[in-house]
Every structure is written in C-alpha cells, then in structure tokens.
C-alpha cells in the first residue's frame, strides 16, 4: 500500500536510484546482446552459404577445398581432424588432470595443495600462441626422433598432445573443486568400514563428485574443440580426411583462422564458408558448455 501514511515504504520514488538500476541492468543485458550478436553475425552468411551449397554436400562429402578450383565443400575432413586432435588431447588431459586432482584433493597436505594449485593455474595462463611455438619447434622434432612411425613437420599428434597439456588445468582445477565439495563424513564413513585411502578415493569420493568431474571433462573437450592457435601452428593448414595422426590436418577452428586472415572477398561463397564452419563450431561448443554448466549446477545443489 504505497502512499498511505502507515506504510514504511518511501512515499516519494527516488528517480536517481531507478536510473542507476536501469544503467546497471543495461550492462548485464550487454552479455545477452553479445550472444545475439554472435548468432546474427553467423546466421546471415550461413543461410546464404546453404543457398548455394547443398547441406548434403556440406555434411557428407569428404573433400574440403573451398579456395581450390573447382571448389569442394565437404566439411567432414575438418570435423574428423577436430575430433582426432581433441581425442588425443583428452587422452592426455583426463588421466593426468584427474590424477593431479585426486592427489591435490585427497592426498596432499593443505600447504602442498596451496602451492601446487596456483602452479597449475600458471599453465592455464600461458597464451596459446606460446604453446603453438613450443609444439612446432620443440615437441614435433622430439616426436619425430622418438616415434617409430612417419611424422610430418605439421601433424595432428603433436597438436593434440599440446592441446592436451593446455587443458590439464581445466580438468584438474574443476575436478578438485568437485572432490573438495564432497563432505568429509563420506570419507570418514569409508575409513570406518576399513577401506583404504585408494578405495576411498576411487569408490567413494570419485563417484560422489562424478557429475562435477564430467562437467570438467566436457568443458575441457569444448575448449579443445575450439582451440585455434595451437592446431593452426602445429597441425598445419591441410584439410585431410584420414586417421593418420602423423599427417598434417586442418581443424574447424584452424580453417576459420586461415580463411579469416586471408584476403577473401566479402560476400562470396568462400567468404560465407568461414561463417558456415563457424556456425558448426559454435553449435558444438555451445551445446557442450550448456550441458557442462547444467551438470555443475546440479552437482552443487546436492551438498549445499
């Protein structure tokens, strides 16, 4: 009952306060505008791309060469290269990241954890162009000298490995958070039943933190799928529909970077190709992020 003398509410509205609130809300809405902007900037060129190139060719043809004569528009080589490099990255990052997380959460003393967790986060702060340089000039020559099979100068193996190391901190840090959130009572119950440290970690803490860990892994996969500089520098720019990880490959992100940094005339089919691949990349990573955010949320609610 605003306005009545008995009310404690302010009888005269404060317009200044309302203005401030509106300004702050506009700032928050800018983030929504960003998403809308991304969708809009992707949509229009993507639609005109599919106006000229059939979706069937795009999704089923195994030849990719939009800048060649005659051009080919089968996206599968880019998708397979993305999946292969991300797959290698996950094989590296999940065991190492999870191992580090279990150690930090279950075994390490607080002092040790306080030292090593920020150390791992330093790894996350290194620019990806630096990882790319290291991959090309150090890791690839090393792989070429120790691996029994043929490895080209640009290859999917090295790119995937280094992406894997780049995403270790994501897996480790988020999984550690999830495991630290498991109540101590569960661990104590397990010890009381005579379980060992290893059994407790693997059979009690890990399952209890499972949705958080899955969320961390999905986020890491999404980061690997979208990673550009490492795969562009170390993976090479050659579309290649093959499973030979010693060969050069081109991922979706690397194609966007390559075509986007060239002088492709605006409005042509080649130009629209950038956006068609961008849309695919956006849809894939957006879906994964969405699932990951949801999982983190659900898992948080369990123990609060």
């Amino acid at each position, binding site marked *: 009952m605003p306005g009545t003398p008995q009310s404690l509410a302010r009888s005269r509205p404060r317009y200044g306060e309302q203005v401030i609130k509106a300004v702050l809300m506009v*700032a928050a809405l800018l983030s929504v505008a960003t998403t809308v902007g991304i969708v809009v900037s992707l949509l229009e060129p993507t639609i005109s791309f599919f106006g000229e190139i059939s979706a069937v060719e795009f999704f089923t043809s195994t030849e990719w060469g939009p800048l060649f004569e005659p051009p080919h528009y089968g996206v599968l080589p880019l998708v397979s290269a993305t999946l292969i490099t991300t797959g290698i990255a996950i094989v590296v990052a999940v065991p190492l990241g999870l*191992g580090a997380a279990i150690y930090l959460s279950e*075994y390490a003393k607080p002092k040790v954890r306080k030292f*090593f967790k920020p150390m791992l986060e330093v*790894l996350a702060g290194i620019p990806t162009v630096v990882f790319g340089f290291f991959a090309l*000039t150090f890791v690839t020559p090393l792989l070429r000298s120790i691996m029994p099979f043929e490895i080209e100068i640009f290859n999917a193996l090295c790119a995937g490995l280094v992406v894997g190391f780049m995403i270790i901190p994501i897996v480790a840090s988020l999984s550690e958070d999830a495991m630290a959130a498991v109540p101590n009572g569960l661990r104590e119950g397990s010890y009381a039943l005579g379980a060992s440290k290893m059994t407790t970690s693997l059979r009690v803490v890990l399952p209890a933190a499972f949705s958080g860990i899955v969320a961390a892994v999905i986020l890491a996969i999404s980061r690997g799928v*979208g990673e550009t500089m490492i795969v562009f520098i170390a993976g090479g720019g050659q579309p290649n529909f093959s499973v030979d990880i010693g060969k050069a490959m081109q991922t979706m992100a690397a194609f966007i*970077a390559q075509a986007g940094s060239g002088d492709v005339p605006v409005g042509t089919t080649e130009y629209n190709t950038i956006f068609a691949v961008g849309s695919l990349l956006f849809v894939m*990573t957006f879906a994964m992020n969405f699932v990951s955010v949801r999982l983190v949320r659900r898992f948080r609610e369990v123990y609060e």
Partner: protein
Amino acid sequence: MAILSTPRSAVQLASKGTPVREHVFRTALIASLVVALVFMVALLSYVFVEGWPRLDSRLWENMPSVRNPDIAGAQSAITGTLWVISLTGLFTLPTGIAAAIYLEEYADKTRWYNRVIELNIQNLAGIPSIVYGILGLGIIARTLGLGFSVITASLTLGLLVLPIVIIASREAIRAVPPSIREGSLALGATQWQTISRQVLPASIPGIATGSILALSRAIGEAAPLLMLGAVSFIRFNPDGIFASYTVLPIQIFNWISQSREGFHVLAAAAIVVLLVILLLMNSVAIWLRNRYQKRW
C-alpha cells in the same frame, strides 16, 4: 571422532600396513601432477634459452622487418598491445563490474530473465575465442563500420573477457557479508549509497584481482585478432583508435610462420617479453589479494 576429522590423521590411519597397490596408486597420482609441471617448466625454459640471444634493446627499439631477422624488433607490436589492452580495460571493466552489481544486488533471481542472463554469461565464458573473431568481423568491423582498427580489436577482446570480469566481480561482491549492507540500510542509506560506499570499497581487491586476470587473458589472445586485420607486418606505432595495429601475440605468430631460424629466435625473445608482462600482472593480482584480503 575428533582425531578422524582431520585428513592428516586419516592418512595415517588408512596407510597403516598398506599393500603395494596403495603406494603405486599414490605414486601414479603424484606422477601425473609432476608430468604436467615438467611440461610447463620445459616450455618456459625452452622459450627462455631459445630467445636469450635476442633479448636486447633491438626488440623494443626496432620495427618489424620481413627481410632481416637481425635488425627486426617488435616496437609496433608492443605499443599496439598497450593501445589495445588499455582500451579493452576502459570498455570491459566498468561494464563488467556494473553487470556484476546488477546481478548480485538488484536482480530478483526468481525472475526468468535474470536467470537467462546468468546462464548466458556462463555459456559465453566457454565460447571459443575464434568465434568472437567472427563476431568482431561481422558486427563490429563491418556492420558498425569500424574497420580493422585498434577500437575493433579492443571491443572484440572486451566482449571476450567480459564474462570473466563479471564472474570474478560477482564472487567478490558476494563475499561481502549481508550484515554490512543491513547496517548501512538500517542507518537510512539508499541501496545505491550502500553499494557505492560500503559494498564496492569492500570488494575492490577481489574485483581488481579478477580484472587483472581477465586483462592478462586478453593480452595473450591471438585467434580473434587474426580475423580482425592484425596480420600483416605493421611498421608504425598506432596513433589513434582508428589506426591499423599489431599486437605481440600476432607478431609472434607472424615470426613463427617464417621458415628462417632467425625469426624463430626472435619469436622466442618476444614470447619472453610477453610472459614477463603476464607474470608481472599475475604477481600484482596475487599481491593485491593477499594485501587487502579481509576477514569478516
């Protein structure tokens, strides 16, 4: 029970007379941490050793050159980085902090639109940076007509790190206990007076830490700028917000793409400069956090 509740004694209790597999498991866990750290140390020391011969004043006194790696420097990239990053901060910090204040202090969380904003910010944080390059290209460079300039790069990077600033600032604001707000409101302060004179000053260390980390992410970012015209060798310093530019990560990428060995050494030297800048920023962030951290 009191003994059991501390993890240390739990370790002792659990490890009494443990079989071999317990030790193997523990060793494997430590090994995975060590492998990750060894990789990092190898990366840092390799870059440092490789770049050492070129870590001298030529790097910041000379302009880039395509022909001669001996006289090439990165001056235009260093000034370009300063231009781009200061504008990025100027744009993204006020916006991000304002959004965080709205979400923490004003937003009614039961309303669907506020939940949409929240979920949207979390999703934005995971979108690949190259997609932001497409956004910058399509909307900022072309539709807004800002072209391939310092301002386009700054706005794109600003949008890229905006979610990080918002998430960090929200956490800092949330850490201020409600009793501070209630005390202020009880004395008759309006909501904005409470926020601007009590909540914000108390959360500044946290906000500053998050902001520095967000900006250091932006400094190292190369992928979106590849699409925004920062590709060719730029032999002059930017002289305004509409000028052409290059930045350190792009200059490094350029040198990596050259086949001659001299350019790789140069790339390594420039990487050391970039890493030193990032390390300094990170130390400031850590120092701020430790210096001003309040216990309520």
